[in-house]
Structures are given as structure tokens and as C-alpha cells.
């Protein structure tokens, strides 16, 4: 095998034979960030390292890793930066709680503003905007 042939094989990803496992691999690679691109998951990047990382996702799954274990594998090697969906940890509690906090806060504001107002008999009013 020449060097050219080695390059040829390095630049493509061999899909897993089991469609269920391949689907898992594709789910995971959408959530792993390419480490040399601007802001792309490895599933979309054409960079060599992204291709390599996609192959490693498949290698880990073939070796029997769970999704969480594959993610942990990449976090150990590249840091939390590589996870596009940040893990739930003390550092990201505020992030994950924020949408719910906004929702509750907004609902509470509306309820408190409407409470204590006398119930008026409103009449419907038709018309243009």
C-alpha cells in the first residue's frame, strides 16, 4: 500500500453495519464540535481531523460504548469545549435552568399583574387592527 492509498482510506468514514448503531453514531457526531473549524459539528465538517473524529465515534460505538461514554471519551481528550450540547454540571446549571426560570418568571409576572384587579364586565369589541 502506498502513502496515497493510506490517505485515501483516512479521508473516508466506514459506516457501521448495524443501522441502529450507525444512527446512534450520526446522532452523536452532530453534537461533537470540530476542533479546527469555526463553529461546525464534525458531522458537517470536511476537515481531516473531523473525518478522523467521526471514525473514532464509530470505533467507540463498535467497541460497545454508550452514547454518554463516547461523549466522555471526547471530553477527556479535547475538553468540555468539544461538546456542543454542554453537560449538565454545576457549571451549566444556570444555563439549563434559565429558560424555565424565564418561563416561570413571565407567568408569575402576568398572574400578579392580573390579580387584585376588579373583575370588570368586558364587552367584546370588533374592528380592524
Amino acid at each position, binding site marked *: 500500500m*502506498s502513502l*496515497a*492509498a493510506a*490517505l*485515501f482510506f483516512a*479521508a*473516508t468514514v466506514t459506516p457501521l453495519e448495524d443501522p441502529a448503531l450507525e444512527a446512534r453514531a450520526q446522532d452523536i457526531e*452532530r*453534537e461533537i*464540535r470540530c476542533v479546527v473549524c*469555526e*463553529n*461546525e*459539528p464534525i458531522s*458537517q465538517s*470536511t476537515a481531516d481531523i473531523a473525518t478522523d473524529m467521526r471514525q473514532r465515534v464509530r470505533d467507540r460505538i463498535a467497541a460497545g460504548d454508550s452514547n454518554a461514554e463516547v461523549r466522555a471519551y471526547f471530553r477527556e481528550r479535547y*475538553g*468540555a*469545549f*468539544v*461538546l*456542543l*450540547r*454542554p453537560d449538565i454540571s454545576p*457549571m*451549566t446549571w*444556570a*444555563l439549563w435552568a*434559565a*429558560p424555565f426560570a*424565564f*418561563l416561570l418568571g*413571565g*407567568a408569575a409576572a*402576568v398572574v400578579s399583574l*392580573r390579580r387584585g*384587579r376588579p373583575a*370588570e364586565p*368586558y*364587552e*367584546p*369589541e*370588533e*374592528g*380592524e*387592527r
Partner: protein
Amino acid sequence: MIGEAGAFLSILALVLVAAQGVLGLLGHARPGLAAAAAACAQAALACLALAFAALVSLFLSSDFSFAVVANNSHTAKPLIYKFAGTWGNHEGSMLLWCLVSALFGALLTWFRGGLSHGLWSRAVGVQGLVTLGALVYTLALSSPFARLDPVPYQGGDLNPLLQDPALALHPPLLYLGYVGLSAPFSLALAALMEGETNTAWAKALRPWTLVAWSSLTGGIALGSYWAYYELGWGGWWFWDPVENASFMPWLAACALLHSTIVTERRGSLASWTILLAIIGFALALLGTFLVRSGALTSVHAFAVDPARGTAVLVLFSLAVGIGLTLFAWRAPTLMRPAGFAAVSRESFLVLNNLGLAIAAGTVLIGTLYPLLIEAVTGELISVGPPFFDISFSPLMAALLLAMPIAPLMAWRKGALSAALRWTWPAGLAAGAAVGLGLFAVGGGFWVGLGLGVGVWCLLGALAYVWKRWGQGGPRTFARFLALPLAVWAMTAAHAGVGVFTLGAVIDTAFKLERAERLHPGDSIDFAGRSVRLVEVVEAEGPNYIATRARLEVSYQGTTALAAPERRFYPGANQPTTEVAILPTLTSDFYIALGEAAQTPRGTAFTIRFYRHPFVRLIFWGAALMALGGALAIVALALRRRREAMGAGFFAAPAPAAAPAE
């Protein structure tokens, strides 16, 4: 000479907008001062327009004795990109920012509407100070008229990714949107200073908000379309921080658009409308900060310069600090009891505002969180598309369920049953779409829900037209034509949301992709097509060299040629991809040429093939939304002219109207 004239004119504009600010703020009780402020605003616009024209001419003549031209242009660049290159860089785009701000200052003086003198004068004043801040920043820290010595023989060229027709238009539209939000901001601050909000004020707010929102919609859509065909794999939204920076003001403008409707018609929600106007402009400034400071690295961050970032942050803090302080101080005096039942047009518009505000907050925290974590702990984390898919999308889906119902509600007190009377066909169709998504095409829960929401929004929007058509008479063709423009404006925008949703859901769920190494002569079968790589040739463009593949794509008995390229721009020392797209009625067949590699059989090329089903609906939907906004502006203008005619042809603007309730 031209450059020095430009620099002089922008300094003159600086003095004029400072005068506009001071005179406008002092002129609320003295009409003479206010008239002087208006004259300053118009003169400042003229000066900045000429200064910008001077900069354009420097780019057109490739005058490399100016740093900004030398760093961002090239003699071999096509003329259109020399022109568009004027704003394809930090300094030029900041001058454009100032120009647009001055434009809104002058427009405020020309289109006064029924605004009371005090509100009008103060709004002109605040707008002058906004322009002043931007102009001080531009001239002090990023002057486009700085000279170079020695003069280079050739320029560094514009980032080739930006040498594209859609991207030539994208920045001016976005700036019209960003800076357009400064007009509602000025009006909001004027209302706080005057301690007065009335129907005329709310009416005055709407056109500016519509201009800003429509331009943002168009600008974001163009950027998205550009990403689709330029970045090489057909993605159209990435939840990239820079995209979020433009999306947050869009969400705020969208909320503001709807809250001003309530304030104009019912007088309620006035203080919330003011707060939204402040927040909307704050988010626009934050967007400018994020993009310009280099806090984010992307194609948009032209210059990484901490001093500039700090300065924008100072301007941001000034505007927001003053705005919110005034709000906290004066808003309680503006409170008026909002009289409406729990189910009414008003309550649905409140729901809209609540949802959009929460959505904007979610995007904001997702965008800033990595920066905060890095500043506090030094650790790098990413908040990417999966976060927004989980948090933003379900919220939006829930909000869109309410969208078709809201316009069918009566003001003050509505009934769901009455709304259902018009929307049940849309509901049935949406249910069918859910079933289709779940069972027929096997897309799963979210795909089913997404398709249902899309159909519901699209048909629900049409249900409103059906109702209005039948109001007060039979549905004749003449009465159809006589429907008010405002009805079509809202219908177009709401239907556009439905069309967009359908495109987004279908493309995300059902796109196909395949990457292959092909030698010339090789064929593959993909997505019902037979594709053969005929040859790969070298070609030369005006300022680039291209590797061009020629492929034959056979589909349903016809053969089409596709020619995707990889280009290299020696001036900027940067490669780009030019994809080939073969559209059919239902999908785009998308081909991107990748790297060459030597194999035992010779030179092979990685070619990526995609089928993007119904992807055009995304852009058509966005275009419909922007069209809706534009129609609404025309409808407002027509209505105002009618009102003015009703009051007598040469009548003065209506006197400050009484509070609405």
C-alpha cells in the same frame, strides 16, 4: 483629496449631530430650538451621505493610500464588489452605521405624524445623541479615512467569502434593521422624559419598528441563503453567536411590533412597549459589540481589537443605563390600567410578547454563557445547536400554536369557540399533517409536530382572510379585492412563518447526503439520480483561480450539467467553495467539490452530494414575512394619508391626541 473631504464632512456631521442632540432636548419647550435641531439633523444626513460617497469613490478607484481600501480591496476585484467592499470591513461598516442613524434622525424630522411638539423634539434630540456616540467611536477608533505611508502597490483583497451578491446586500439591510431600532428607542426615551404616551406616540412608533423588523428579516434571510449555497454543505442556520446577535434584536422587534398594536389601539401596555423599545435597541448594540469586538471569532469579526470592544461596550452601557434608569424613574407615572379579559386579542398579544421575550432571553443566555464561563473560570465550553433545539424550538412551537387564533379574537373580550369556528379546517389539516409525519413518512414525534405547526400557521393565516372576506356581506370577488392592505400584510407575515416552518422541518428531517471519492469517468446513483463525473478542469476568474468539476446528472430521463468549483483567491490567500445546485419543484440537488487526492488510479476528488427537500420554502417563508412587513408600512402610510385628507388636504398634523381610553 476626496478622502480628506470625507473626513472633514464626517467631523462636520459630528458637530451637527451634537447640536441636534442638545437643541432637540432643550427644544421641547422652545419651538425655535427644535426647528434648529431638525435642520441640524438634515444637514448631518447630507454630510454623512457625502462622506460615505467619498469612501465609496475611494474603493471604486482602488486608492490604496487609504488603509481601509488597501486592506480590503484589490484592483482585479469585480466592480460590484469594490462597491460592496465599502461596507465589507470594520471602518466602512461603522460609517454606514452612522449614516443610517443620521438617516433615521432626518426621517424623524420629516415624518412627524401626530406627535406632540415635546415628544417630537426630544426624540430628534435622543436620535442625535445616538448618532453622536456612533460617530465619536467611528472617528476616534476606526476612522475609514486614515492614510497609509508608504502606499502599497496592491491591496489585500476583500474576504472572498464576502464577494457574493447576497452578501453585498446583507450588511446594509441588517444595519437598516439594527439602527432602525434606534428610532423606537429615541421615541421611548422621549416619552419617558415627557412623561407622556398617547395614541399618536404609539402610532409614530409603528412605522419605525416595521422598517427595522422587515429589514432585519430580509437581512437575516439573505445571510441564511448565502450560508446555504456558499458554505458548501447546505446548512442555513447554525446558532452561531453572530447569527444570534442579529436574531435577538429580531425577536425583540417582533415583540415590539405586536405590543405597539395594543398600545396604539387600547392605550395599555405602554410601559412594556417602552421597555421593549429600549431592550430592542440594547440588543442591537449588543449585536454590534459581539460582532465588532472580536469577542467572537467568525467571518464577521473584521478586526480583533480590545480597545474597540471596550468602546462599544461603553456606548452600550451608556445607552442601556440611561434608558433603563429613565424607565425605572418615569415608567410608574405612565401606568394605566389595562382593561381586558383573560381571553381577548390583548391577552393573546401579551402571550406573543411573553413568548418572544423568553425566546430572546434564552438565545441571549445561550450566546453569552460560554463568554461568562470563560471570564469567570477560564474554562472553555460550547453552547451549540443542540441547546437551542431543546430550549428554543419547543417554546416557539407552543407560541406558533396561538398565532392563527390571535387575530380572530375580539378586543377586550374574546371567545375561543368563535376563533375555532374559523380555524377548525386548519386544525383538521394540521392533525392530518401530524399523522402524515408520524406514520406515513416515519419522521417521529418532533417531525410530526413540526409539520402540524407549519400547516396550522399557514392555513390559520388564510382563515383570517376568509373571515374578513365574509364580514358584512357575501364573498364576492369585488369584496375580495377590497380587503384592506393591512389584512394582507398580516396574512403574508403569518403565512410566511408557516411556510418557513414547513421548509425548516422537512429539510432538517429528510435531507440526504453522501460523500464519494470519484475519478473522472466514475458514476454513482444517489437520490434517484445517476451522476457521472465527466472531467475536472482548471479555470481562471478575474481575481481567482478555480478547479471546476463537470458532472452529468440524469434524472427522470433528462440530463443536466453541473459545475461545482473550488476557488482560490491569491489576493486574500483564501479558498472558497462554489456549489452547483440543480433545483426541481420539490428539492434542491446540491453538489460540492472537495479536496483532490492521489490514488493508485490517478487523481480523485471528494464530491459531496445532498438532496435538500423543500429547502426553498425556508427562504420563501422569510421573504413572505419581510413582504408582510413592507406591506404593513404601505398600509400605514395609506391610512395616514386618508386620515390627513379627511382632516382637510393641507391640514396641520392632528393635534396631540387624547389618551386612548
